[in-house]
């Protein structure tokens, strides 16, 4: 399984439809403080089904929708699409949230439930709680886990 692209639209500071293509090897994301790099990490965990507001750095889920800036009004919809390839097959996972709070998930363009997204990603190493995603400021967490938590992480690696 490989990531091919990530598309953000109206998600946090990404007012415009923006596409990232994932390359092989090592990719670095760079830019000034506050320009949107960590918002991309938020977009990835969000589209995979993150429901906790704290790890997304928001107070309520609607806060992930572009809230306006000096030159622009707020919008009413945020959408993130993650495209993957698995054994030659293309898979796209999309999540949308409307200003009124309605939340939708899609796999390959068809509307599904959160559970379907979770089932799709289970065991692939790509998922909301993947140990392989280290959020800003979280780098010590793997070292400071309690022994029982560490056991759980190892069990999930089998």
């Amino acid at each position: 399984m490989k990531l091919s692209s990530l598309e953000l639209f109206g998600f946090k500071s990404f007012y415009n439809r923006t596409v990232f293509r994932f390359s092989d090897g090592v990719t670095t994301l760079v830019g000034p403080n506050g320009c949107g790099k960590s918002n991309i990490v938020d977009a990835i965990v969000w589209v995979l089904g993150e429901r906790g507001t704290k790890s997304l750095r928001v107070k309520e889920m609607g806060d992930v929708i572009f809230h306006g800036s000096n030159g622009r009004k707020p919008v009413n919809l945020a959408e993130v699409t993650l495209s993957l390839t698995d054994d030659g097959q293309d898979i796209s996972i999309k999540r949308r949230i409307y200003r009124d709070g309605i939340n939708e998930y899609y796999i390959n363009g068809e509307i599904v439930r959160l559970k379907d997204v979770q089932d799709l990603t289970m065991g692939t190493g790509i998922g909301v709680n993947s140990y392989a995603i280290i959020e800003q400021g979280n780098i010590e967490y793997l070292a400071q886990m309690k022994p029982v938590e560490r056991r759980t992480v190892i069990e999930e690696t089998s």
Partner: protein
Amino acid sequence: SKELFLETFSRVNDAFQRFAPMLFKGGKGMLALDAEGQGVELYIQPPGKKVVRMELLSGGEKALISLSFLLSLMETKPSPFTLMDEIDAPLDDANLVSLLKIMQEISKQTQVVLITHNRITMESSNTIYGITMEEEGISKTIAIKLA
């Protein structure tokens, strides 16, 4: 099942005992089941130092421990990608260079994405995406392919 866990544990522990000395040159690390068999303890001995509680260790040392453990999990069951946000912030240049060598190796079978402000990290990567906010409050990206 218990056998499956013990077999996975043994593979992760093997990997940890190999990665820890790479990041802590001259140091050692190992995992161990605790007395009740309920949890997994982590022991690290930086070069020349005593094995001590995690709290005493420095910010950079704790980051290196986390990364050694992460690499061990990744070697045991490769993840399609890894995404790390400013993990180089607490590291000195020498440790960062060792880490990036290992990340290059890992990147042969895993897509590695690193968010960074660090020049050394940028220069070691194959692709750079620049993110800016020319239009106030709105993120925009440009891709700069290196290699």
